[in-house]
């Protein structure tokens, strides 16, 4: 277990060092405003990444989350603006649809024995296509609830704002941590990701757990969609393009093993914050191309994959051969 903690510690150390380095260069980065922005601006990504953590822990992958976020924003916007529903009702409908969407994907993965990569790829196309069919244009949402939520925040000392969507993300992380480490479902997910056959032999309900994992991921993507619609007060079919990949990156940088079985929800939080830090640094610098974000994240991903290889093969016999050579 101690060994498994190393990637998490490494991520935290890298985040702190990077943050200190950024602050030394731009002292105004050490402010509650910037910290508040980290949370608010990455709220949708963080929520989706919690779902992704469970999927990856179980040994799968979910490529549909970005598209589900996009679909949710459009669905919410059309329900509120065209159908005249109350936002809370629109949220409920969106969550039910996204949960069902995930359950169907989970069932397809388990019963049809199709790799999750393929099933969720199909899900991605379906959701993105569906969103564009609903409305190809961006729909602005005008409702008192939206105005009130965007106006309510906790003012932190120093001018920072802890917004409602930031608090939703923090709550999702806390619940995610409890779910992963303190519940039976959580231990099933870890067991499934460790080895599906032995998990089944030990009595883990594989079918139910698989379906639940994808249901959870899609539901959280639906919540991320709600948060995204609050964030921009609009629904747009092309919103959150590629968020699934950012979420996967956050999970891996956060120390979760891509093959499943090892990892921490808390690590994912650091992974998300690290991405926010890189983006903020580039905005503060103002001369670097924003594509450097991708390059840095790519470099970090590579570093962590390497790190995991070293840490997790330490106990396997292969490691000795590796050392001798």
């Amino acid at each position: 277990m101690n060994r498994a903690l190393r990637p998490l510690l490494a991520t935290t150390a890298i985040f702190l060092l990077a943050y200190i380095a950024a602050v030394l260069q731009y002292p105004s980065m050490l402010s509650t405003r910037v910290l508040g922005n980290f949370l608010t601006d990455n709220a949708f990504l963080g929520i989706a990444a919690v779902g992704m953590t469970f999927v990856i822990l179980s040994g799968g992958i979910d490529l549909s989350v970005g598209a589900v976020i996009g679909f949710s924003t459009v669905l919410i916007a059309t329900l509120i603006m065209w159908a005249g529903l109350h936002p809370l009702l629109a949220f409920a409908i969106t969550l039910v649809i996204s949960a069902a969407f995930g359950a169907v994907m989970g069932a397809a993965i388990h019963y049809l024995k199709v790799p999750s990569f393929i099933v969720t790829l199909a899900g991605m196309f379906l959701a993105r296509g569906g969103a564009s069919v609903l409305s190809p244009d961006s729909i602005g949402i005008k409702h008192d609830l939206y105005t009130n939520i965007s106006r309510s925040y906790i003012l932190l000392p120093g001018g920072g704002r802890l917004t409602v969507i930031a608090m939703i993300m923090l709550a999702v992380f806390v619940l995610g941590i409890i779910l992963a480490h303190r519940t039976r479902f959580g231990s099933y997910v870890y067991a499934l990701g460790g080895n599906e056959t032995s998990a089944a032999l030990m009595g883990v309900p594989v079918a139910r757990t698989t379906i639940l994992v994808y249901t959870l991921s899609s539901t959280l993507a639906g919540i991320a969609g709600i948060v995204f619609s609050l964030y921009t007060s609009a629904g747009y079919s092309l919103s959150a393009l590629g968020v699934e990949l950012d979420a996967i990156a956050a999970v891996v940088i956060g120390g979760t093993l891509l093959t499943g079985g090892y990892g921490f929800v808390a690590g994912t939080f650091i992974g998300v914050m690290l991405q926010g830090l890189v983006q903020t640094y580039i905005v503060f610098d103002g001369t670097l191309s924003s594509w450097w974000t991708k390059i840095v994240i790519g470099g970090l991903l590579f570093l962590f994959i390497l790190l995991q290889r070293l840490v997790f093969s330490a106990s396997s016999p292969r490691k000795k051969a590796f050392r001798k050579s």
Partner: protein
Amino acid sequence: MSIIKKLALVAGIGALMSSTAYAEGLAGKVIGFSQIGSESGWRAAETSVTKAEAERLGVDLKFADAQQKQENQIKALRGFIAQGVDAILIAPVVSTGWEEVLTEAKDAEIPVVLLDRGIDAPEDLYLTSVASDQVKEGRVAGEWLVSTVGDRECKVVELQGTVGSSPAINRKQGFEEGIASASNISIIRSQTGDFTRSKGKEVMEGFLKAEGGGAGICAVYAHNDDMAVGAIQAIKDAGLKPGSDILVVSIDAVPDIFAAMVSGEANATVELTPNMAGPAFAALDAYLNAGTVPEKFIITESKLYTPADDPQGEYDRRKGLGY
């Protein structure tokens, strides 16, 4: 119409005044610029012109490319606010969803200037917006044709932009307004060329065939230069001389149309200036240094270029801008 002219006049005077009275007014100011991305040549030119203008004025420009994503633009804006910049320029990728972050900028007393596109938000959330008047661009092209052909009978074919896009609608309307006074000029055919060179050529070939090899066509009006360049190719392929047998007038003023003018194959283009930042900096200068609140909508000049305006020089000036 007169309101737009007045606004343009006011903007022009404002720009003139600020450039004389507060010549070094923005030196050392930190200004954030959130750009949509670099999806078109014009957009890339806008970015390079903005950077050049900032350097000329001594502005410390913080540039953020949003890679076509609104969330990246919002993040960039929040980053600018946290950094405490003096002002923000933004070319918004979509029109919705800006109220929250612009309110935050307003609370932080940072003026925001919109470039090139408008948004659906209360007008008090931004200082001003700098954009071109697409109807006027079409009108300038139409008026040029009227003054060029005189009393001669003139049948025009039109290459429209992408169906339903606002530049296509507005540039068509403007051109029709421009030629409305001249009964000798009529648009005989009008089809979409999708703003692309290849579609422009294809549609022009169709026009030429339908009009007896082009004998009856006096001029072609294209909603952008790219389609005009395609049309020029089609006219040459049909054995006619573009620029003399058939007049070519278009909009945008990209380098390639000036190259065509140099070889006498294009007659006029109306500029969609990539220099949206110039008027924006002028407005910010006046606002930050003298407290002058600018007009809400600054309309950029729609300048007409003909072969008399040193096309070779214009080509050389533009080719390095990233078009």
